[in-house]
C-alpha cells in the first residue's frame, strides 16, 4: 500500500501542461500543430495505458475470485498457491488501483497500516494462511475482499488517465519496490515479496514501453539507457526464479538484496527523466 498519495493531487492538469504555451513569445502556428500532435500522441498513450490497467484489474478480479473461493472452502494449499500470482495483477496496475484512496487500504493494507479492527484484505488473510496455517476464521475477510475488489473493478472505469499519472506512476512503482519490497515488509508472512517486486517493475516497464516513441523523439539516448537498466533488473530477478515463480524473500542473501536495491535505483534515476516528453520540441 502507498504511504502517501499527494503527488497525484498536486500535479498539473494536461490542459495546463500543454495549453498555455502559445501565449509566449514567437510561437508560430506551425509550432501549435506540432504541439497538438504531441498532445494527441500522449493522449493516445494514456488511452492505451488505461486499457492495460483495466485489463490487469479484470484479471485481478478473476484471480481474487479463485483466492477467496479457496479461503472460504478451507482449501489452505490452494489459497497459498494462488495468493502471490493474484497480487501481481494489482501490483502491475498500482498507479491506477491506488487512485481510490479508500479501497487501496482495504485490499492491500499491511498490519499496522490501519487500525487493527479495520484491518482486512490480502495481507490479513496472508497472516492466517502462513502464520496460523489456517483459513478458519478468515472466511469473512475473503468475502469482504471479494466485494472490495469488485467495487474497484467498477470504479476503475471512471479513472481519468492523464499523462501526468503515467509520468509519476512509472517511478512511483519503483519507489514502491525501494521502500517496501526491498525490505521484505510487503509480504511479511508468506515472503512472496519477489512476486510483487517483479509486478511493480513490469508495471513500470509498460508505461515506459508506451512512452518510448515519444521519448525517442526527445532523447533517444535516454530511452536506450532506461531499456538497458530494465534489462539489468530482469537479469538479476531471473537468478531468483524457481519453477513458475520466485524463491522466498528470506532465501535472498543480504548482498543479493542490496544488489537488487541498487539496480532499482540505477533504473529509477533515468526513468525519473521521462517527464521530458511533455516539453516542446
Amino acid at each position, binding site marked *: 500500500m502507498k504511504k502517501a498519495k499527494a503527488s497525484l493531487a498536486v500535479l498539473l492538469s494536461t490542459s495546463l501542461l500543454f495549453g*498555455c504555451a502559445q*501565449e*509566449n513569445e514567437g510561437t508560430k502556428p506551425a509550432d501549435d500543430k506540432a504541439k497538438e500532435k504531441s498532445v494527441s500522441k500522449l493522449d493516445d498513450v494514456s488511452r492505451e495505458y488505461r486499457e492495460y490497467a483495466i485489463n490487469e484489474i479484470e484479471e485481478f478480479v478473476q484471480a481474487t475470485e479463485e483466492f477467496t473461493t479457496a479461503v472460504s472452502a478451507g482449501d489452505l494449499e490452494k489459497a497459498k498457491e494462488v495468493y502471490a500470482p493474484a497480487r501481481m495483477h494489482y501490483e502491475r496496475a498500482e498507479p491506477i488501483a491506488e487512485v481510490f484512496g479508500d479501497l487501496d487500504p482495504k485490499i492491500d493494507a499491511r498490519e499496522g497500516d490501519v487500525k487493527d479492527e479495520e484491518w482486512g484484505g490480502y495481507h490479513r488473510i496472508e497472516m492466517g494462511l502462513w502464520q496460523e496455517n489456517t483459513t478458519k476464521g478468515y472466511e469473512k475477510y475473503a468475502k469482504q475482499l471479494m466485494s472490495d475488489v469488485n467495487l474497484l473493478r467498477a470504479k476503475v472505469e471512471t479513472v481519468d488517465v492523464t499523462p501526468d499519472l503515467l*509520468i509519476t506512476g512509472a517511478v512511483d512503482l519503483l519507489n514502491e519496490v525501494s521502500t517496501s519490497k526491498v525490505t521484505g515488509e510487503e509480504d511479511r508472512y508468506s515472503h512472496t515479496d519477489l512476486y510483487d517486486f517483479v509486478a511493480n517493475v513490469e508495471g513500470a516497464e509498460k508505461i515506459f514501453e508506451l512512452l518510448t516513441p515519444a521519448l525517442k523523439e526527445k532523447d533517444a539516448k535516454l530511452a536506450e539507457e532506461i531499456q538497458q537498466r530494465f534489462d539489468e533488473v530482469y537479469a538479476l530477478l531471473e537468478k531468483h526464479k524457481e519453477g513458475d515463480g520466485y524463491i522466498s524473500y528470506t532465501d535472498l542473501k543480504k548482498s543479493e538484496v542490496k544488489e537488487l536495491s541498487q539496480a532499482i535505483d540505477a*533504473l529509477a534515476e533515468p526513468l*525519473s527523466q521521462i517527464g521530458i516528453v511533455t516539453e516542446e520540441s
Partner: protein
Amino acid sequence: MKENTPSDETKLFTKKVSRRKMLKTAGVGGIGVVIGASGIGGLLTLSDSRAKGQTKDIVPFYGAHQAGITTETQDNLYFASLEVTTDKRSDLIQLFKDWTEAAAQMTAGNLVGEASLNANMPPKDTGEAKELSPSNLTITFGVGPTLFSKDGKDRFGLKSKKPAELNALPKFPMDALEDSWSGGDICIQACADDLQVAFHAVRNLVRIGRGKTIIHWAQTGFQRTKQADSGKTTPRNLFGFKDGTVNPDTNDGSEMNEHVWVKVGDGPDWLVGGSYMVVRRIQMYIEVWDRTILKEQENTFGRHRDSGAPLGMKNEFDRVDLEAKDSNGNQIIPENSHMSLSRGDGKAKILRRPYSYADGMDPKTGSFNAGLLFICFQRNPSKQFIPIQERLAKNDKLNEYIVHRGSAIFACLPGVKKGGYIGDSLFG
C-alpha cells in the same frame, strides 16, 4: 592558494538560464502560473548560483593539482568509496567528464546542472545546499587498484597503466579489516566547512553516477571547527591528543614536491602531479582509553596531553629528542610510543589529513562506535606509509586502544585545466 591559481574560471562555469530558454520552456511544466503571478522580471533573476555574488570561501577547482590535498583542511568530510558497475570504458570517461563539470560548479558555490523549469522532472540539483556559502568545498577524485584490474580482468583497458605503487596495502599485524570498509574502484573526498555542503557534493556526484557506480562504503568525518578554534592550533583526536604536529608544511612547495606529488620518473606519466592517498578506518576504544591513567596515556603518544609537547619538554613544537634520558637512565620518550615509532629515522614523511568519525553505538558491545578516518597523501607508498605502518603495527603502544577496521589506497589524479576533465591524462 598554493598550486591552484585563483582565477575567475569558476565564474565562467556558472550557467545562467538564458532569457530565451526561459521563455521557450515557460509554457511547459506549469511555470505559466508563475509568470502570471510574478511577471517575467521575477523569472529572469533565476539562475543556478547558490548564494549570490559569492567569491569568498572558494577553493579554486582548476589547477596543476587537485584541491583537497595540500589546500587548508576544512572542518568536515564526506568520503565515499565507489564500485564501478558499468563495464564500458566510454561510460567511465563520460562519468568523469560529468563529474568534472558538476564538481567545478559545486566548488564555485553553484548548483549542479542547468535550472530546469519542467515541473514534470526532478530538479537536477538536489537542493540542500541552496543559499549556502561555497564553504571552501573541495572535491578530490582518486582511482583504486581494482579499477585497473580485478580478478585478473583488464576491465577498462587500463591494466597496462596501473602504477606499480598502486596495490592493496599489505596485511599489517593486528589488522582486523572488514571488506565492507575496505577498497574501492574510485574515491570521492569532499571536504567543506559545512557538512551539509560536503554531503550535497557527494550525493549529487553519486546521483550522476547512478547506474554506472554504486557506493561501496561511505564515511562522514569532523574536526574541531574553525569557529571553535580561531587560533588554528593543531587539532586534537578523540583521545584528546594533538594530532599532526609534525605534518610537513603545505605552504612549502619544495617539501610538497619531495613528499606528496608524484614526479616524472616515479611511475606512469599520467599520474604526475597526482598523489597516493591511503585511507584507514581506525576504531578507537573510547571507553578503554577513558579509564587509562594520564601517565600511561602520555607514554602511549610520547607527548604531554595538554601542551602537546614531546615528553620532558614544555611546548608543542619543542625539539624532539628520542635519546633523552631521565635521572634513572630511562628513556623519557618510550621507544614504543606512537610518536617515536611514527618518526623512525625522520626521513619518510607523509601528509596527514585525517578526520574523526562518530557513528553512534556499536550494537554488539554498546560502546561508542568512533575513531579516526586516517587519510594521508604521499608520493611513494612503499617508501612512506607502508614502512611507517609496519613499525606501528608491530610495536605501537597505541595498538592496545585502537583497531584498524578499514583500508584503501587510491591514486589521486592530477589537477585539471579548464576544458579538460579529471582523469583525462589516464584515459586520453
